[in-house]
């Protein structure tokens, strides 16, 4: 394994690990405060039980999310020092603001978890709200920084150096809105669907449990709107990359020749050498519609770009299809739930829907991972689109396969422990 590949693997693994905790760290506090609100309003102990379990889960997930986030902040330099030297002054702004948001989240989580007996019910609930809000804001700022790597703005390059830096323009780069919207909705959709899925599974065995009914209800309250809005957000993201990252779009769609009225290819395998996508079903003009909202618009193909600027085609296309496929299933489940709501049928009694939701439990997380593969691998060979290549950013430190192996083993260990703790201490414990 070359050092560059090891560095990329370590970064991918660290991000892939952290993103799960980040997503849950945004979604879980919202579930927690919605449930506590019900407890304060109804004084039904089921809601207190639920709130306590979810806050316990949040505590465990937050701790691992915080340390893996700390690791990432160092890895930016440990693995990509040249990138940070180039970009630090340009994108430091969202990172600094993220620091404050994260700090606020950590403070109020401490207050929330340990303050049950020290605060009034109202103050305690507001502490939970502060955790949920600051966690969401913190995620948005980090995505702003990543978006800049996809659509770098707010500077000019003179003699290989960035000059005329405008950190505000860099922070509010063109991708910032679409990307942070997509990620925030993904966090709520994934968490909501996962929690709904777990309790749907439990309800299949015990339909009468008031505990699981309560949990399912709250989880669907965030899962349904987020999953449906995500479809619109995904369309915005697609239109964005059509303009700003045409190579990424072409790679995602397996689209080689620049054409007007380009078809949308479903399935199939991109053949890089031959320059065609084989065995795909073509939907006429659909790609032009999706990319530019006009059936006759021109969509640029991969052949318009030098081959050394192509990302790995198969990986990007495959990941994209997983993301869209799972997102589609989540939206479908959400529509089904809405039909139940409209017909005033209780979701907890719809066995086929419960089974569908239970099967979708991991769907959001897999879609999030696949989505990050599309964003990050789809930008290769660039670390800063059009300005700096990933290969030029890597540290001169040799033997990077060693830290990669160590962190992989460490994170596997942590992942197993967290899964076990959530299961043994939260899911398995019988409702009071």
């Amino acid at each position, binding site marked *: 394994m070359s050092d560059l590949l090891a560095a990329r693997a370590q970064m991918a693994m660290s991000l892939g690990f952290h993103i799960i905790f980040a997503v849950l760290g945004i979604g879980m506090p919202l579930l927690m405060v919605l449930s506590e609100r019900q407890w304060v309003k109804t004084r039904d102990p089921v809601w207190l039980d639920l709130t*306590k*379990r979810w806050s*316990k889960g949040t*505590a*465990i997930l*937050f*701790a*691992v999310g*915080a*340390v893996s986030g*700390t*690791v990432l902040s*160092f890895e*930016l*330099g*440990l693995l990509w*020092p040249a990138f*940070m*030297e180039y970009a*630090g*002054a340009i994108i*430091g*702004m969202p*990172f*600094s*603001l*993220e*620091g*404050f948001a*994260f*700090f*606020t989240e*950590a*403070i*109020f*989580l*401490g*207050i929330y978890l*340990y*303050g*049950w*007996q*020290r605060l009034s*019910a109202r103050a305690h609930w507001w502490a939970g709200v*502060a955790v949920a809000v600051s966690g969401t804001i913190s995620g948005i700022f980090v995505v702003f920084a990543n978006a800049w790597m996809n659509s770098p703005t707010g500077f000019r390059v003179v003699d290989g150096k960035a*000059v005329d*830096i*405008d*950190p505000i323009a860099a922070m509010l780069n063109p991708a910032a809105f679409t990307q942070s919207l997509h990620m925030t909705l993904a966090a709520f959709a994934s968490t909501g669907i996962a929690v709904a899925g777990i309790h749907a599974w439990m309800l299949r065995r015990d339909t009468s449990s008031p505990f699981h009914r309560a949990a399912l209800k709250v989880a669907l309250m965030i899962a349904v709107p987020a999953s449906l809005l995500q479809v619109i957000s995904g369309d915005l993201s697609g239109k964005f990359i059509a303009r700003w990252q045409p190579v990424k779009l072409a790679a995602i769609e397996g689209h080689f020749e620049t054409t007007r009225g380009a078809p949308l290819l479903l399935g199939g395998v991109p053949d890089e050498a031959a320059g065609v996508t084989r065995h795909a079903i073509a939907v006429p003009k659909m790609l032009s519609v999706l990319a530019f909202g006009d059936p006759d618009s021109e969509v640029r193909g991969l052949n318009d770009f030098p081959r050394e600027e192509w990302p790995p085609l198969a990986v990007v296309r495959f990941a994209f299809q997983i993301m869209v496929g799972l997102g589609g299933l989540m939206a479908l489940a959400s529509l089904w739930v809405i039909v139940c709501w409209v017909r005033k049928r209780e979701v907890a009694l719809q066995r086929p829907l419960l089974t569908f939701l239970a099967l979708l439990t991991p769907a959001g997380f897999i879609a999030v991972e696949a989505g990050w593969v599309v964003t990050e691998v789809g930008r290769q060979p660039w670390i800063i689109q059009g300005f700096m290549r990933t290969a030029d950013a890597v*540290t*001169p*430190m*040799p033997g990077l396969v060693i830290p990669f192996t*160590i962190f992989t083993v*460490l994170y596997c260990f942590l992942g197993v*422990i967290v899964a076990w*703790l959530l299961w043994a*201490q939260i899911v398995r*414990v019988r409702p*009071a």
Partner: protein
Amino acid sequence: MDAPVLALVVAGLIMLAVNAYVVLGGADFGAGVWDLLARGPRAAAQREAIAEGIGPIWEANHVWLIFVVVLLFSCFPPVFAHLSVVLHIPLTVMLIGIVLRGSAFTFRAYDSTDSVVQRQWGRIFAVSSTITPVLLGMCVGALVSGALAVPAEASFVARFITPWWSAFTLTIGGLGLAVFAFLAAVYLTVEVQDAGLAEDFRAMALSAALAVGLFAALGLWFGRDTLTATTRALLTNPAAIALQCVTGVAAVTAIGALLTRRYRLARTAAVVQVSGIVWGWGLAQFPALVPGVHTIASAAAPTVTLRLVLIGVAGGMVVLVPSLWYLFRIFKAEPARAFERVDTAEHRLPE
């Protein structure tokens, strides 16, 4: 503000964040050391007091480190890049320590009530709490001694190992550990209610104070060649002498207050003393950020970035300061208030 002043202000802010990390986060590490060393009939009670003292505030205390990192790469990007390259190995080991420590602490709190499992998590928490400060100290030692000025064409060992592996850096690593342990023990004397426990932590604090003195003396001995002439000149200028006097007086006061069991005074004096050590380090290498490579002026980001980051920090402080004050007021100032107990026995989950 013009560029040089701005850069100076941001560098000062970074030092303040380092200072906060040392006196707050450092004490959490130190508490882990005492968890490891808990002895005698009250060992279990000591560990419990430690967990209670850290519990609500530890997540917040450790964000100061992220702050330092973020300010450094936004405002002095070449310094961040340089440190990340030459200190790759110790920083990586330190990160592993941070990961294990943070997760083990939480796992211990939420894992089964089985004492064997709890003990294992406690052991991981304690051991990683001990290793991490040593590495942090070694990195600081390497930085201040000027050893990080290595050319890119140097051999692997000369570039990636020698700078941070010497008698001097190891001594500073020991000093870091002793300082953190000292802070933790002093804080705990104030926080425990039980007089016997207070005595235990007092004894720990005094032994740690002794270790701080020993490592400081050793550091001066091993550093006699590495610390450059400029460093020595700086340490003899009036501001530095004043700072050393304050540190010295605070150290004597802390020990005196511990001996006479005036714990609140000891806590204040210990914070002043340790802050004095932190700023003494800053002064010793001023105005260099990486001695021999980068100074505050040479490494600073463009003025617009510095100015915006300062505005961002000022705005963030408006949220942060009241929040922190609230956190510490709730958990460190008053005993639990008798609010309606919502988690009565029948509602409580098994802890």
